[in-house]
């Protein structure tokens, strides 16, 4: 894998997970990737995971080549149960939502496993689709991958057990890739390295790219330019941000993954930002 072959690599995968701390730009990157892939005629399904992903309305919702959906655990669990058990109308009424909610909340790892199960469902039903999963923030993301392991043990027999085996298999397929999105900020970088280390110790997964978001754009080499007192503040800021970016890049080398940098650009709307990033990726 190299940074210049990002798009090519994406097109060769079946599932890509975008992981990272809250607020680093996972959703933005996931959408940019979706658009860049769709532009190469790849059918894409973009998955958001509720309740973590409900804070903004999806401005790209009606993009023609991209299927966008949100998976909500209680609804997914209900759907799954009703399908597996082939309940008829009477029993559908008997199970009301509060009962499902109770199970989801109390049964450890149930919610995440159910959601992963739905991803697996999409995966099995549409082998030519590329599925992009916008994961919740890091702590929850680890639970997402970890939960099927716990559930498999807790529910030592039955349908759920079998489902967890399939899910774990999907995570470890070579066509599955996990990308890490981060910012050039100490906490974000730290969480990225911790996340990779922890996940690797749990499952045999394939990591993909590190996306370093909101870097300062390359505006010139400072060293040969003399100081100008009137512009001192702005120059200092630029130099400080470049130094911060370099430090983050150095720390992220520990991940041993190819890195792509995305500069911070002044766009008014989120949609413009996504499209600009999609262009950058499209040229890769």
């Amino acid at each position: 894998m190299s940074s210049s072959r990002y798009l090519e690599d994406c097109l060769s995968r079946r599932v890509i997970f975008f992981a990272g701390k809250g607020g680093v730009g996972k959703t933005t990157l996931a959408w940019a990737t979706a658009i860049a892939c769709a532009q190469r005629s790849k059918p894409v399904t973009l998955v958001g995971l509720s309740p973590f992903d409900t804070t903004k309305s999806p401005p790209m919702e009606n993009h023609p080549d991209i299927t966008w959906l949100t998976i909500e655990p209680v609804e997914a669990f209900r759907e799954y149960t009703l399908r597996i058990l082939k309940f008829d109308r009477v029993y559908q009424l008997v199970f009301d939502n509060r009962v499902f909610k109770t199970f989801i909340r109390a049964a450890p790892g149930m919610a995440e496993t159910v959601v992963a199960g739905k991803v697996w469902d999409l995966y099995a039903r549409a082998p030519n689709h590329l599925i992009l999963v916008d994961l919740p923030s890091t702590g929850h993301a680890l639970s997402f991958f970890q939960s099927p392991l716990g559930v498999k043990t807790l529910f030592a027999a039955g349908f759920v057990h079998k489902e967890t085996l399939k899910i774990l298999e999907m995570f470890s397929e070579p066509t599955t890739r996990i990308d890490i999105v981060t910012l050039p900020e100490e906490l974000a970088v730290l969480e990225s390295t911790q996340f990779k280390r922890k996940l690797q110790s749990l499952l045999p997964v394939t990591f993909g790219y590190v996306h370093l978001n909101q870097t300062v754009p390359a505006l010139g080499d400072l060293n040969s330019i003399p100081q100008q007192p009137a512009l001192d503040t702005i120059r200092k800021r630029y130099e400080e941000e470049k130094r911060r970016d370099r430090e983050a890049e150095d720390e992220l080398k520990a991940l041993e993954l190819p890195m792509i940098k995305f500069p911070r650009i002044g766009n008014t709307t989120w949609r413009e930002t996504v499209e600009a990033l999609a262009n950058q990726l499209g040229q890769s």
Partner: protein
Amino acid sequence: MNPIFKKAEVFLVAGPGGVGKTTLSAALGMALASQGFKTIVLTVDPAKRLANALGLELFDHEVQEIPIVGNMLLFASQLDSQRYFDRLIERFSRTPQQKEKILINPLYRAMVDTLGGTHEYAAMERLLEFVETKSYEKIVVDTPPTQNAVDLLNAPERLADFMDSSVLKWFGGTKPYYVSLFRQGTRLAMKMLRRIFGSEFLETFGKFLDDLEGMHAGFRKRNLEVLELLRGPTTAVLVVNTASETRYLETRAFLQTLGEQRIQVAMLILNRLEPLVSSELPNGFEAPEKETAYYLGILQHYHSLYVVEQWWVERFEGLRPDLDLVRIEQWGEFTHPKEVLLRLGKQLLFFPQPPTDC
């Protein structure tokens, strides 16, 4: 001093993760303490951010004293929400035996980890405790970095829902009299569930729910007490955000939810704002072409960031023109010396006047 800060006793610093809530909470706490109020800052955030913001490695005690200016002290407390939830179970258990049975149940431990909202619930419960003991004049609550800020308010309700006895009856488990209350359909449904989950789990789960029986009333009552506190005149909710499209949409939704819950917002704070930068070179600037191009490039970049952000600041202003909107500019460093924090806190405390140094 701004009347909001004079009048209220509890300050809830709310907002999504990554906007600087912890720093602002620390700053506000310091500023209040510097004005002579006995102040405590509460956090549930397991990361060491509050400690770091206050210049410490981590907290040694449940309530930590931090010297700020002269003889002034600020108090801070970091909640261990896992252990804290145990205390809640203790409070609501009807017998010591019930408490023990729950605490040793492996499902309980797992539930606290995955239930979602336990951090938030523990934070609210802890807050109530501090308010009831009346040990502090001002309490600043650094709320957990929930992705969806609405979770904070929903948490107690969701928990009470979970404990709802009418749902628990569904999983009657070992108690025969429950089963007889329901139609044949229930038995069949449970049989189906056994096929999915296995008998062993269902039995453990049923027992667990049996043990929780009766606690729901306690949780629900507490939930109402939390809401009452949040709705009352002694609480001020400060909503913190950064200025961009997604944050704007989030804030709008959050304000609406708060309104529906009849919780008033006292102040909107926009943090980490870009400072004003002109896109033009200063008067009299003369330099070779390469140098000029270099400086122009930098100016235009930062100027465009400023302009875009200002557009959203205006949208924020339009959200609630009746509220104070405080704008805080981006700081260069991410860890802040105490003096800087104090100045920041005073900017809030004395808004809209510029703070005097004292």
